[in-house]
């Protein structure tokens, strides 16, 4: 019994780490840049496929390809914000209109990225094996790659938090999140900071994708599921709250693991029920202001 509980809890935490990472990215994009990026999952997919390509074609260690994958996806996100979203921001009559327009533009991006990926890699399922040997934790057995993934997800999350809290750019990002206009008056180059935020959001999605590709098989249409999960997590943690997303990720991972143990088919239903109940009872999320 104790081993079963341990089993379920650890499985939940392992999945929660990834959820936390991808949700932080989405949270950053919505919280600072005010873009509800429906295409978030597509960047996860891109990260996963770049890692797969590097491993399958060039034989590069997936953990090393995190270093390659991250910057590429950061630049894509940065440039997207500089061109498309900055243009929308200028042309939208009100902040609310910008939120609507940018969400729909992101929806268009979803199709573009997903179908470009299908053209490049084909629509089939891809997978590789890396660090798949079993590890025993107090009686519960897991593949080593899951533990490595959790470790990296935690490290990236903590590093990002320190970056936000301690560095000058992090301060500028927090200022932009609170009040973009005043931050601009105080000498923050607001468009650049927003673009960096969006880029960091896609970066985290890409890294999440790289880590995901180590554990499960991937395909070009995998993105939307993760977008939805990230959305649920940021609603649990409070829209725009970075620590909230981090904690929310683990909560969702645990809930998923518990429900999967009781009734495997109902995990997604449980996610949505939790999410809709929370929206109705406490729409600001657990750590929301």
């Amino acid at each position, binding site marked *: 019994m104790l081993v079963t509980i341990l089993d379920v809890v650890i499985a939940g935490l392992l999945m929660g780490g990834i959820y936390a990472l991808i949700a932080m990215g989405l949270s950053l994009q*919505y919280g600072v840049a005010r873009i*509800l990026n429906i295409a978030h999952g597509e960047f996860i997919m891109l990260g996963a496929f770049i890692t797969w390509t590097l491993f399958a074609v060039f034989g590069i260690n997936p953990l090393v390809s995190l270093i390659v994958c991250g910057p590429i996806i950061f630049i894509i996100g940065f440039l997207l914000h500089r061109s*498309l979203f900055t*243009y*929308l921001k200028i*042309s*939208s009559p009100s902040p*609310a209109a910008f*939120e*609507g*327009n940018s*969400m*729909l*533009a992101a*929806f*268009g*991006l*979803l*199709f*573009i990225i*997903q*179908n*470009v990926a*299908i*053209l490049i890699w084909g*629509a089939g399922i891809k997978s590789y094996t890396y660090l798949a040997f079993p590890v025993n934790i107090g009686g519960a057995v897991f593949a080593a790659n899951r533990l490595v993934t959790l470790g990296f997800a935690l490290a990236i999350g903590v590093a990002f938090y320190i970056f936000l809290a301690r560095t000058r750019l992090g301060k500028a990002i927090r200022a932009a999140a609170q009040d973009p206009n005043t931050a601009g008056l105080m000498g923050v180059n607001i468009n650049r900071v927003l673009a960096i935020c969006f880029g960091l959001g896609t970066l985290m999605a890409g890294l999440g994708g790289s880590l995901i590709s180590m554990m499960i098989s991937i395909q070009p249409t995998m993105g*939307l599921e993760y977008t*939805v999960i990230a*959305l*649920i997590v940021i*609603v649990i943690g409070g*829209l725009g709250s970075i620590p909230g997303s981090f904690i929310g990720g683990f909560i969702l991972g645990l809930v998923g693991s518990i429900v999967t143990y009781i*009734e495997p*088919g*109902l995990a*997604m*239903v449980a996610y*949505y*029920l939790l*999410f*809709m109940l929370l*929206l*109705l009872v406490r*729409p600001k999320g657990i750590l929301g202001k």
Partner: protein
Amino acid sequence: MDIVRFISKRSFLLGLLFLILVVLVTAPFYTSGYFVVLASSIFMYIVLAVSWAIFSGPTGYISLASAAFFGVGIYTSALLGGALPLPIIIGIGGLASFCLAFLVGVLTLRLRGIYFAIFTFGLVEILLHFILWWEVNITGTTGRVVPTVDNTTVYYAMLVIFVISMLTAYFIRRSKFGLALQSIGDNEEAAAHTGVNVTLVKVTTFAISAFFMGAVGATMATRWTYIDPTIAFNPLLSFMPVLMAIFGGMGQLYGPVIGASFFTLLKQYLTTTLAKQGLGELYMLIFGIVLVAAIVFLPKGVVGLIQKWWGRLRKRTSGEQHANS
């Protein structure tokens, strides 16, 4: 000379609409079966886009629940098909969606902006996953066979739903009710203070728009013969009406009609011609590019563009008159 003024006349417009209606009603007698099938699809998307715009256009609440209401209609048809005549099934499908929308509307009263959009999107996914689980674990069968109806019947059913939804949208726009909706979109608190029953207006309109989506779902299901939860609750159908309405422009009633017709024809063209060359996948890519381009270059939709050109034409002809007199 005075062609602009002539076209603007009300009687001309009514005559034109009547003519279009006559053409549509008689179309199955002299066109091919292909036209009837294609026209039914166009009607489907027009009704989805127009009924989406009935609620979301004036209020600014972005609803992503269209697929849920559409899917409820589909499932009504699948469960009752064959047992009851088609018009009754369509009515029940619409009513089921109406009730669901009413419930959702009451639940989500406090949610604004992006929260409403996320909640409604969640509704589609939860129905999809729950019914999938139910079919796999409780009934033990995934998917159902829907008794088919011939294409011409589907065409006329869609035509009737189309006309009724257009009339409903028109009268809502023209009525005090429509003004109340508009005021909610402009400023909800102010609307409440001036005596608009915000709750009632919002929930009723949401439910009315869902009625048409459910009715369309119940009708179109008969054409698909086989359905399962992933077909019935396809999230794409939540986004398509939004895209079509925005592309067409929501400033005028005909905006969503233009948007829906354009995209259905584009889809038809791309899937048939590109598939011949083995490039069927390109369809969704082009679709995404058009969507992004529309949001960037046509913020007020095709309607905005038409109005701009129309305004210029009008100014020019009135200027000519001025010069002549």
